[in-house]
């Protein structure tokens, strides 16, 4: 775990050369979709020649390949956007670059961020950093692996239903999904706009805190951004009231994952926090809500990919066939499943029974959370029911794959901040993360608690 101060104390060029070397050494994990060697070195020289230094001066980082920048193609790991060079830079990336950070490349993901293993990438899966026969998790799988392999201290990810937290858990790194609205989504490929969040995968809680502090705050290009509220907490974490979500600790959860979570809870108690078991009865319905609401939003957000204004276009005689063939060739099977489920739940005759009912149950789930947050500051539980599974193990059964998200989607539907912190390893040597969830805008509280337990 290399602290940010190590990087800022060296020359930018040295940092970038090291990161590029490590990236090449670890090519076989297939964590990168592209590397910006030339541009990164040019930027490093610029930074080394500049007297004014930013907070991340010369620190190399990686972006998930669904962040738009003019450097390198933004593919979203899809054939649809293969060769798409964006004319704009995502706000999150621009803010980090303004502090001197240097993007060295783009990380693999499930195509359009649809998935929980990075196996839905049009360019092949990423291997887990601790066991190459296992998945990286997803959808920010590449971002988690480049941090776990110590290529860079942090990588950007997106989290719509667990896409930062679950790969963070699977690879043993810190993963933070901030409060919905904290970080601007301008310049990031949209998936499900009511839950999409930009966040960070990092080698420590401190690194994650610095990065979030820089990225957060209002952006006139994203009307859903909240006025800046994030203030990192310094010093000892105050004593908190912690609730252990009993629905997340059931028999269905892998015994190693449960015992690692229990050990983490004991640590919280030893640190003087009050810990009690709590119930989130609607949690078991959250996955069903998610797999209605998200496909609905996906089907409309992905409507823009028609092969006309940008992206790849298939050859056909008529306009309608051009749309149809471009989309069939440009999307992966999981993209098509979600688009079609979305079309189904939004179509007349089914709208009330599926989409409207899901949005009402979402309200009930949010009410459940709000009631708990009257008595508790933080909720704790596992991130995922299992450690990283084998490559190919869940690809034949979409429901089985979706179940990997069962403990991460509730916070997404409610827009709550949630993070995944490494908590231990299984007997087979696989990392397991624990999830902390708090009320909206409590990001700093969660990070402070995680930092204390990290030590």
């Amino acid at each position, binding site marked *: 775990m290399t602290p940010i101060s190590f990087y800022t104390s060296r020359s930018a060029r040295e940092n970038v050369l090291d990161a590029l070397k490590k990236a090449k050494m670890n090519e076989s994990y297939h964590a990168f979709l592209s590397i910006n060697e030339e541009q990164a070195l040019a930027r490093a020289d610029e930074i080394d020649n500049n007297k004014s230094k930013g907070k991340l001066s010369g620190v190399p980082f990686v972006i998930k390949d669904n962040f738009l920048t003019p450097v390198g193609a933004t593919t979203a790991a899809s054939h649809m956007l293969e060769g*798409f*060079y964006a*004319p*704009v830079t995502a706000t999150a990336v621009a803010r980090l670059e303004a502090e001197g950070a240097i993007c060295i490349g783009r990380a693999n993901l499930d195509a359009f961020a649809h998935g929980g293993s990075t196996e839905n990438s049009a360019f092949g899966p990423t291997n887990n950093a601790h066991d190459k026969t296992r998945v990286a998790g997803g959808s920010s799988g590449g971002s988690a692996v480049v941090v776990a392999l110590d290529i860079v201290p942090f990588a950007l990810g997106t989290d719509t239903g667990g896409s930062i937290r679950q790969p963070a858990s699977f690879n043993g790194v810190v993963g933070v999904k901030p409060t*919905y*609205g904290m970080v601007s989504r301008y310049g990031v490929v949209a998936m499900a706009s*009511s*839950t999409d969040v930009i966040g960070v995968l990092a080698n420590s809680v401190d690194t994650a805190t610095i990065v979030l502090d820089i990225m957060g705050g209002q952006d006139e290009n994203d*009307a*859903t951004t909240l006025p800046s509220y994030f203030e990192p907490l310094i010093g000892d974490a105050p004593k908190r009231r912690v609730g252990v979500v009993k629905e997340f600790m059931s028999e269905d959860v892998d015994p190693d994952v449960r015992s690692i979570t229990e050990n983490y809870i004991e640590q919280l108690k030893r640190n003087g926090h009050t810990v009690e078991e709590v119930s989130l009865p609607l949690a078991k*319905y959250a*996955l*069903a809500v998610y797999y*209605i609401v998200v496909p609905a939003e996906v*089907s409309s957000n992905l*409507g823009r990919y*028609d092969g*006309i*204004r*940008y*992206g*790849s*276009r298939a050859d*056909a*005689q*008529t*306009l*309608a*066939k*051009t749309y*149809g*063939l471009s*989309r*069939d060739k440009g999307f992966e*099977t999981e993209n*098509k*499943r979600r*688009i*079609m*489920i*979305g079309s*189904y739940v939004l*179509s007349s005759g089914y709208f009330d029974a*599926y989409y*409207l*009912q*899901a*949005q*009402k*149950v*979402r*309200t*009930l789930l*949010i009410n459940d959370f709000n009631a708990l947050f009257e008595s508790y500051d933080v909720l704790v539980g596992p991130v995922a029911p299992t450690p990283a599974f084998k490559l190919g193990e869940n690809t034949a*059964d*979409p*429901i089985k794959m979706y179940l990997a998200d069962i403990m991460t989607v509730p916070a997404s*539907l*409610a*827009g709550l901040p949630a993070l995944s912190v490494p908590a231990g390893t299984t007997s087979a040597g696989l990392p397991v993360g624990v999830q902390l969830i708090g009320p909206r805008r409590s990001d700093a509280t969660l990070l402070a608690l995680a930092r204390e337990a990290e030590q």
Partner: protein
Amino acid sequence: MIQISHQDVLHLAQLSSLQLADEEVELLASDIEHILGYVEQLSELDTTGVEPTYQVVDLQNVWRDDIVQHSTVTRDDLLALAPDSANHQIKVPKVM
């Protein structure tokens, strides 16, 4: 239990502007059937009188001053992204 036929998949594909290959249709029919079967559990819950949640930020009507902001992106930048263009216009196949 919901049943999704070959015809249903083709209809959904049409609504979604997806020209599916024949071999994709069968597979998608069974996947979609399973997924809808799973999410159907929400019908167990009584939601009478509950308001739906469409968005989770309490922000409403975020305004800005009505001033034209000049983008750094030019018309040529955008046209260059299109697979086919001519005379400063994006070209598409025949519509009718």
